[in-house]
């Protein structure tokens, strides 16, 4: 195709797109790919997923780009790889999953020729994925390799060694963020190796760039900051779908219920807010390894009736949760970026975010707080609940600010880095 001559061809090792298991990582991968497509970059997107999901999920993934055929035709190609790795997986959750797979899924389908393909532990599976990536890389022609977070680093390095093209590592989170400063040594080693093998590192914030330089010994000149963005679409629901009991105010936590996201600080704040504003309800939307502990904690603190746990939400339910809430709180202990506050504003809900977050670098029309400063957080929550004028002002100005944060602009920035690297 003559048209495509001179276009940059990138081999991207990414993660599943929304609405499937949409975490921040998948959302960002989709946004970056879309932004790049808008600037004419040709992306081959390598996507790991478990075999069993294939029938139901893939149509949707492809469909996301098919919908904009005139823009994305020939610019984005998805390559599916059968693997059990997925974002936010850790050693334990992987073991659980692979055991489940081998005992349940394979047993049931005993006769259709399937055999045990997945590795027994996460690190072996990541390694296996890297082996497959080499073949994929050799199968096409690429100018650059771009991979996202630690489970794809080895794949990226393998591809780089196979085709001798520059490798970009995109850091959406480090092991320090995920573990609150107590990294798994093996994961850290993979990250460290990846960052040193990379020709360029993209960090989702100055906050993350700082982590990379401080904890991984990378020179600041090798790290560029590419802030994330958000899809700006009007999302409106019937009032009945987004109203709690009339008169009751709702404070929302939405995210993985893990140490990194600070749900325990949310609970501590909730107890104090309740004393000042008895008619407030608290919603915890998300799942994670701290869920049980949090539910127990809420009960012990006398919040059993007032703190509701929705479990994992996806798609429109996320928007509904935001619209139901009067204020969204993101008390993350360590948040490399944090797209959810932007989504909250789009849904018309004011936000309070931890200062230990990348998004606080691009969002000024919000309230910011140190995640550990419970009293300050309570002060802010109560004020937003009590003063509608404050909430309205934050949303109005915040929405104007969020509108400027587009993936199209992110795509332009990433492409500029690409250009410098292939030049």
């Amino acid at each position, binding site marked *: 195709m003559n048209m495509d001559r001179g276009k940059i061809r990138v081999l991207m090792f990414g993660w599943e797109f929304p609405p499937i298991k949409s975490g921040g990582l998948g959302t960002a991968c989709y946004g970056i790919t879309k932004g790049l497509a808008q600037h004419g970059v040709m992306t081959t997107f390598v996507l790991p997923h478990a075999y069993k999901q294939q029938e139901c999920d893939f149509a949707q993934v492809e469909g996301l780009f098919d919908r904009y055929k005139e823009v994305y035709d020939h610019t984005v190609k998805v390559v599916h790889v059968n693997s059990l790795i997925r974002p936010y997986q850790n050693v334990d959750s992987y073991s659980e999953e692979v055991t489940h797979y081998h005992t349940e899924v394979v047993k049931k389908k005993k006769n259709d020729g399937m055999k045990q393909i997945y590795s027994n532990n996460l690190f072996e599976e990541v390694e296996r994925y890297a082996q497959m990536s080499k073949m994929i890389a050799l199968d096409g022609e690429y100018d650059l390799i771009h991979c996202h977070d630690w489970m794809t680093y080895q794949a990226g390095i393998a591809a780089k060694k196979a085709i001798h093209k520059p490798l970009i590592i995109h850091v959406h989170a480090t092991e320090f963020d995920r573990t609150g400063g107590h990294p798994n040594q093996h994961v850290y080693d993979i990250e460290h190796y990846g960052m040193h093998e990379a020709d360029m590192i993209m960090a989702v914030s100055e906050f993350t760039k700082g982590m990379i330089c401080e904890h991984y010994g990378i020179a600041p000149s090798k790290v560029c900051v590419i802030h994330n963005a958000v899809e700006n679409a009007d999302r409106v629901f019937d009032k009945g779908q987004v109203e709690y009991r009339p008169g009751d105010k709702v404070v929302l936590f939405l995210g993985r219920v893990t140490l990194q996201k600070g749900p325990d600080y949310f609970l501590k704040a909730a107890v104090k807010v309740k004393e000042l504003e008895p008619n407030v309800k608290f919603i915890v939307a998300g799942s994670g390894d701290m869920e049980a502990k949090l539910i127990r904690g809420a009960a012990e603190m006398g919040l059993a009736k007032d703190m509701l746990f929705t479990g994992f939400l996806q798609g429109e339910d996320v928007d509904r949760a935001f619209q139901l809430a009067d204020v969204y709180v993101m008390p993350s202990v360590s948040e490399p970026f944090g797209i959810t506050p932007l989504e909250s504003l789009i849904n018309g809900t004011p936000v309070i975010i931890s200062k230990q977050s990348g998004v606080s670098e691009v969002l000024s029309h919000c309230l910011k707080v140190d995640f550990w400063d419970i009293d300050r957080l309570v*002060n802010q929550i109560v004020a937003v609940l009590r003063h509608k004028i404050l909430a309205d002002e934050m949303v109005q100005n915040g929405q104007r600010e969020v509108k400027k944060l587009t993936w199209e602009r992110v795509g332009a920035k990433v492409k500029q880095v690409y250009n410098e690297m292939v030049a």
Partner: protein
Amino acid sequence: MGTSICFYFQVHQPFRLRQYSVFDVGKNHNYFDDVKNKAICQKVANKCYLPANKTILGLIKKHPEFKVSYSISGVALDQFEAYAPEVLETFKQLAATGNVEFLDETYYHSLAFLYSKKEFKHQVLEHRAKIQKLFGVTPQVFRNTELIFNNELAHTVEEMGYKGILAEGADRVMGWRSPNYVYRPRTTSKIKLLLKNYKLSDDVAFRFSNRLWNEYPLTTPKYTHWLASSEGQTINLFMDYETFGEHQWEDTGIFEFLRHLPVEVARHPHLSFKTPSEVIADNEPVGEMDIHNLISWADMERDLSAWLGNKMQQSALKEIYLLEEKIEKRIKAEDKKGNEYLKRSFTHLLMDWRKLQTSDHFYYMCTKWFSDGDVHKYFNPYDSPYEAFITFMNVLNDMIVRLQKK
């Protein structure tokens, strides 16, 4: 008839609030951040007020024709008394030279004129008394907070006995007219209006050290040449006193610039230095200014949007002035009952209430900070305008709790 150069410097520091949270409401009535206010006051004293006063004292000694005027807010004077008495001392020395005029303003650097004429007059009289006490002079010229002005203000101030009033020479009220003349505000019969020449004022106040400005560097001869080639009765150079040493740091050469000014001006026989009162005494108005809508010297807009631009600001201001009558009523009631303790307690509340009116509290809530951002951030104690609103409303709620006291 020559052209006069009329300097007026604004001196102001607010009583900034401390981080007053919802947990303090009803329990703690100390609203002000004494530590921070003291630190800022002393910092600005050392960088600006003291060296600038010294420079001007020296200039007056050497050049008896050099004259300037000041408007110092009451809350700034209070802080000098508490935190930097040497600043007050040097202002007294300046007053003693006879070359320096002191103007009146609202004691609390407030927006009272917009909400309560009664409170406005009280604050102006309180300021007048303070100036009389400290400097032994009675101000004849008035300037309102941030040069906020309209016909109605001129009328009110004339009734209070002032001979002159200052305002911004904003383009939209000047039209084809020059700010370099004395005018008479519509609806007044005696008072005279002096308008800021914002171009020549801002050349010093804002652009002096701007390397991207095509006139950089601004030398005294160059600037004096601009003054000398300006036509009119008077060139009114109105600016924050913090221009010297704080907005423009000493190493920009701002003090040197000032030090050379009298010598350079003396080369032009038609130029002279005058205080606002002298300009008013020596010149008749050349025409009438009809300024119905409020103007100010703030930002590019030169309107009130820096204090009243959003609903948080409007709401906070409305709420605070709703307390006026309630506080007064309680003081009167306790006075009648002879309950000294409660009377004192409500009088103290009244004092706090007045300090809460200082315009800076509302300025900190301004959300249009993208174009005029850096000025708004100047000594702003808050992370965001929303924090400013939250803290202010917490304090306001505590005052409401105090009002219920039995």
